[in-house]
């Protein structure tokens, strides 16, 4: 019996997660006011830049920063944000990248690769590098069918 892993694919934009294409995904709980989450939302036709929102902790579970729609929010970890051609990179300390988001433009369509090593409020590893993409751990919704709307934030 052949085993298959299944995902959804958008004709316009996808993220590469767990070596799968997906139009959008959520790790953790964006509805919580203080828990870890990483939310890569759908990019609709007419747009080409990804929408990343997140609450990221360090290995001890202490808050490092919050991202809202790929923009820096709370930043107690004093992380540095560097815009890149086709994305951005956030450094926890000089020469210590925390998160990199890069969008590859095809002749028609876009694909975003993420590189990150992220921890939750318990200090558990939730996102780690996997080749050219990321591997996620724990509670996650790996395929979003529509733009994600947190119920209470």
């Amino acid at each position, binding site marked *: 019996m052949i085993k298959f892993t299944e*995902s959804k694919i958008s004709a316009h934009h996808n993220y590469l997660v767990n070596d799968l294409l997906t139009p959008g995904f959520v790790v953790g709980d964006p509805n919580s006011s203080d828990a870890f989450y990483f939310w890569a939302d759908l990019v609709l036709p007419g747009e080409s830049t990804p929408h990343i929102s997140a609450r990221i902790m360090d290995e001890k579970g202490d808050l490092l920063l919050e991202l809202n729609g790929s923009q820096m929010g709370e930043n107690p970890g004093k992380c540095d944000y560097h815009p890149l051609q086709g994305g951005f990179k956030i450094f926890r300390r000089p020469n210590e990248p925390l998160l990199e988001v890069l969008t590859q433009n095809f002749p028609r369509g876009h694909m975003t690769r993420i590189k990150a090593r992220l921890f939750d409020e318990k200090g558990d590893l939730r996102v780690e590098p996997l080749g050219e993409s990321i591997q996620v751990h724990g509670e996650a919704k790996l395929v979003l069918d529509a733009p994600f709307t947190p119920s209470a934030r």
Partner: protein
Amino acid sequence: MGTNNALNGVWVFGDYRNYFQNRVTLQLIAKGKELAEKRNTKVTALLLGEQVQQYAMEYVAHGADVVIAAEHPDLKEYQVEAYCALVAQWVEAFQPEVFLAGATSFGREFFPRLAKRLGTGLSADCVALEVDPKTGLLLQTTPAFGGELLAEVVTPNHRPQMATVHPGVFQERPHNPEAVGRILYPDFNVLPQSRVRLIRSRRQQIRKVNLEEAPVVIVGGRGLGSKAQFERLFELAQLLEGEVGATRPVIRAGWAEEDRLLGQTGKSVKPKLLISIGTSGALQYTTGIQGAEIIIAINRDPHAPIFRMADLGLAGDASAILPLLLEALRKRI
């Protein structure tokens, strides 16, 4: 997520080499979608290779409901034994009713091997595909007996019903950026053993010929008499902003490159205007020009079959008519 009952519909093999020039996979996805809807099922595109994400997205944008994507560094280059073994496994697992591929050099090698391995039939170089409304079987129209007649082939007892189709026979659907599909990644760690070891591959440098997209096509046949006369067609094509095609005897004579070949074993075109010069009108050629909106034929034999499908026929010597035509066009353009 999802169920796999839609995967036994129409499959299309994704030939993405020379992607933006070679549209045959997109044309087959469009036809496959039409056939699948008649059978109340789905169209699935297969992709083997490395870093094939953009092609998967393109196939969904052009109508594929499902993409099966096998990514592995060793699949980057086409290797017939490995490709055959993998695809055969998936066919046996999902039992698709119909499986289509382009009648490209790739499809012509790969699909017969696959059909043999699966123990089913294959209709090569099809010029039409339909679903029989009574039986639901795929009606595969293909030239037979050296192109002298068109045969309608059915595969009642074996599955999948396999066919290769010329580029240009069907039209692709418009690119829809809002489309969403399923994508399946088969689990495999070890590729099937291959007796062939690829040492290196190199892309052949050829002059770009875009016959399928040209609004005007000038076709030369052996009746032109010489390579020098054939070369004059390029000036005619330039004046009319078109491309030059050729019949099999012209290719055999070495007057034109293989990629200009029209017909049963070459390309199919759908120009607004096609001028056929010095061609008799053999079926193996005319199957490739059936989609032309207006056909003008020039041949010295007034009984040549080409006149039966021409909208305007000139019975005369091409070597006399061609200079007059060129001169008239130079004055007008």
